[in-house]
């Protein structure tokens, strides 16, 4: 009997457990600046990030907050927050010392080492001009936005670092939402409520997103026009850089709210072609645009082609676009559809929470309209998190068995994945609109074996976006493309955890870098993070 119980314990479900602020010492709370006028930017923020800003091997966290704008003057100053991971389960607020408080009406964050100096930098998007914080390497950052030329005024949402021209430098895509200022806030009211509610984005004009090419000298060139990106004004939220046609050039999938989504296929030579309609990812049934918010990409069924995911608003169902090759996708949400029928999704990511080798899916939800419950039956403002396990052919909703936190409701927005306790399984950080963030510790994901990789590019872009990692465990060969961006307003732990299941050995790991170089690793130690330097292979 004891053996049976032990076996059950070993194979028992993985859970996510809340790390309370008393434990983590993360006491920061998002202020959504909610006003009687219900200005739209109040309800869409904000994001969060896992990043190791001090290169101590522990994932730190960053949160974005609201701030002064044309419609909001905070009574007391609001700050973004950088918390240093103390390596013992607690965090210390180092925002002021680091100089990354923001001070604008913040939306999202994208962390990456844009200047390849070995220290991760921060790009913070805002309603208003964005901020590029360059990491000085000594625990402080410098605002280099103006010098870099990436302020991108207007209303930016998600930012995505990737290398569109494969020149080894990280370029930047900045999603732009609608044209907005406080005078553009139409009166959206409900006669029975006698109050304003947040207007649907359908009422606002779209704006083109921006693409910045990294020149390599600390500046960026706005190539939105010549790349073709600016030809397509949208109401863009989530964006993910991935390679949908396996041609080695990173494409962009961009979710639009109340407009067709964009699939920008990278044609090479700095040009993109938008093919969302023909690819079948632009619209829902009957040509109805949906309210796309969070996105991600992964090869969930292991067929070698990148599939796409979009979280939409309630009653629209979320989309899981299976890549049928030749730039054609079919929406096959399977069990995800009924589970998300009444939900509105934002932060999300495909990741292998149980280290069995395949990508699972975590979703963060919350309705943007805080008065929705009085207007639409059964739809709630605060909504539950969802976890789907990959069954090989689709996804199964395992939320109910994955921890008490899945029984709670939140005003979820951003979501980042990272192993903050370095125990080899991916934890989750969510940022909630007008609420404290949520740090979730993965309990039990590391019961399966794993190998953690820190990729250090030497010729390729510093984030190794576009790298293809292949690992062989017995007869099973798995492949993962390193995507850029994804989720919603958030940024993930840059390390890769490769799940090995119950196998006691990973036979080989191969990394095909965006530069074309390949590193092949053998005799890889299990259950450890290893550093892999491009061209030099493994360095433990």
């Amino acid at each position, binding site marked *: 009997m004891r053996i049976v119980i032990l076996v059950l314990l070993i194979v028992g479900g993985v859970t996510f457990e809340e790390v309370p602020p008393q434990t983590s010492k993360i006491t920061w709370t998002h202020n959504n600046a909610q006003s009687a006028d219900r200005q739209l930017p109040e309800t869409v923020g904000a994001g969060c990030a896992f990043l190791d800003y001090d290169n101590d091997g522990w994932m730190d966290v960053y949160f974005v907050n609201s701030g002064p704008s044309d419609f909001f003057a905070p009574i007391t100053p609001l700050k973004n927050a950088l918390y240093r991971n103390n390596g013992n389960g607690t965090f210390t607020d180092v925002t002021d010392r680091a100089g990354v408080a923001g001070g604008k009406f913040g939306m999202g964050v994208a962390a990456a080492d844009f200047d390849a100096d070995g220290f991760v930098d921060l790009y913070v998007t805002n309603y208003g001009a964005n901020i590029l914080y360059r990491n000085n390497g000594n625990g402080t950052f410098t605002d280099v936005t103006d010098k870099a030329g990436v302020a991108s005024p207007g209303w930016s949402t998600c930012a995505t670092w990737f290398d569109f021209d494969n020149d080894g430098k990280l370029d930047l895509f900045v999603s732009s939402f609608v044209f907005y200022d406080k005078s553009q806030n139409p009166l959206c009211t409900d006669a029975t409520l006698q109050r304003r509610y947040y207007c649907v984005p359908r009422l606002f004009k779209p704006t083109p997103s921006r693409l910045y090419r990294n020149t390599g000298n600390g500046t960026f060139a706005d190539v939105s026009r010549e790349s073709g990106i600016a030809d397509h004004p949208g109401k863009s939220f989530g964006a993910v850089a991935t390679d949908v046609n396996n041609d080695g050039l990173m494409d962009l999938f961009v979710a639009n709210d109340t407009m067709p989504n964009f699939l920008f296929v990278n044609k090479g030579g700095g040009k993109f072609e938008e093919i969302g*309609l*023909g690819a079948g990812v632009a*619209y829902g049934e*009957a*040509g109805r645009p949906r309210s796309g918010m969070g996105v991600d990409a992964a090869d969930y069924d292991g067929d070698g082609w990148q599939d796409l995911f979009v979280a939409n608003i309630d009653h629209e169902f979320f989309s899981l676009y299976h890549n049928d090759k030749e730039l054609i996708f079919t929406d096959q949400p399977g069990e995800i559809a*009924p589970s998300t029928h009444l939900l509105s999704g934002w932060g999300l990511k495909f990741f292998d929470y149980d280290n069995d080798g395949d990508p699972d899916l975590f979703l963060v939800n919350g309705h943007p309209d805080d008065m929705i419950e009085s207007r639409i039956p059964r739809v709630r403002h605060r909504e539950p998190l969802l976890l789907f396990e990959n069954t090989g052919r689709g996804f199964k909703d395992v939320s109910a068995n994955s921890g008490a936190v899945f029984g709670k409701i939140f005003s979820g927005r951003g979501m980042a994945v990272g192993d903050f306790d370095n125990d080899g399984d991916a934890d989750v950080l969510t940022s909630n609109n007008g609420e404290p963030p949520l740090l979730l510790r993965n309990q039990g994901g590391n019961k399966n074996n794993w190998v953690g990789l820190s990729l250090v590019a030497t010729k390729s872009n510093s984030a190794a976006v576009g790298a293809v990692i292949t690992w062989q465990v017995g007869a099973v060969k798995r492949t993962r493309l390193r995507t850029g961006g994804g989720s919603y307003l958030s940024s993930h732990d840059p390390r890769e955890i490769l799940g090995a299941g119950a196998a006691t050995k990973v036979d080989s790991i191969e990394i095909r870098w965006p530069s074309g170089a390949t590193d092949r690793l053998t005799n890889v130690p299990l259950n450890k993070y290893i550093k892999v330097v491009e061209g030099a292979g493994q360095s433990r």
Partner: protein
Amino acid sequence: MALVVVQPVYAQADVARLEQIATLIRDNKIIQAEKDLSTVLRANPNQPIALNLLGTIRAKQNRLAEAETLFTKAVDQQPRYSGARMNLAFLYLQKREPAKAVVQLKEVLLLEPTNTEVMVVLGDAHLATGALEEAERQYLDALEGRLDNAGALLGLAQISRAKGEIKETTLYLTRVGTLITDSKSPEFLYKFASIALQVGMNDAAKAALENALKLRPNEPAYLLALGVAWLRKGDLFEAEKVFRHLIQLQPASEPAQVHLGYVLLNQKKYDEAQLWLEKSARSASPMPEVFYYLGLVAQEQNDDAKAIQLFEKAVQKLPNYAHARIALGSSYIKLRNYPRAKEELETAVKLDPEEPKAHYNLALLYARLKDTARAQEEMRLVEKLKAKGAGGDGVVVLPPNPNPR
């Protein structure tokens, strides 16, 4: 079937006995009523009231031919017996023979020229024959200048609806809605709801059906209509609840199976939707929608070859089924058989030029064929049609009023 006893004059004792029998019938004590009636009819086989009462019992038992014979015999025995004529008229309406009902009702109206109830029923009978003007005259006569006769107003609403006058229909129905809040007639509430559903007055229909179900709980036709009202309101969850209740009462009911399948399909609960739709497909003469919905399930399960077979079946049953044609086009697009897709979609557009889904699939097709201009043109049409509120393929199959009176 109404129980109209009054009129021919007989001895007080006979009348008392027949009224007792009528009470038994009202109380649904049919065996005792039949026993008593056979005693009466043994003594006097042509007793018109007894014949009329026995006809009522047979109608209740759905033995309509026998009921007709009995009512006719009663009328033959006593031509001025308007109660029997009314019952005969109701019977003809139930049998969908309104012209015969008109004949009887005109006779009744000659006997009772101020009876507004008869005028309304005569209006209904005329309406059923398509004689809108005659129907309208009867309803207006019944109203006598006052707007308090719900039956007449409902008739006028139906006439407006038949003429395509939606605004007028809505006005009449709104007025009827205010008159029937305390109605004790589930049949009338159902009739009102059925018409209200046709003009999109879904809340009014729902309220009427809920009241009808209070008066006659578990009546399958009312439940089906209530489920449809919830569907029309876009509340799939409430619709599902109602259809599940209906399925519990009538597990073999095809409309219940189709509607439950449909509502589950729209919630993307494909496995269970398939289960109910397949049950329905096994009925003697399945509705074409069943194959269409099963095809959609197959499409969602990525089995387009099977989906095409099912859509073809739907089209065989109903060649003008535009949605099935669109679905065929969509499956052929998925299978990358673009010429066949084009053929089906163009047929669909001919059948229903206002359906955005057809134009969207054409846009998708042209985009695949790299004909950007035509793709954009089709998408512009989609936008235009959606702005007009076109589109939708919801099944709405309401059964006739189960007990018209």
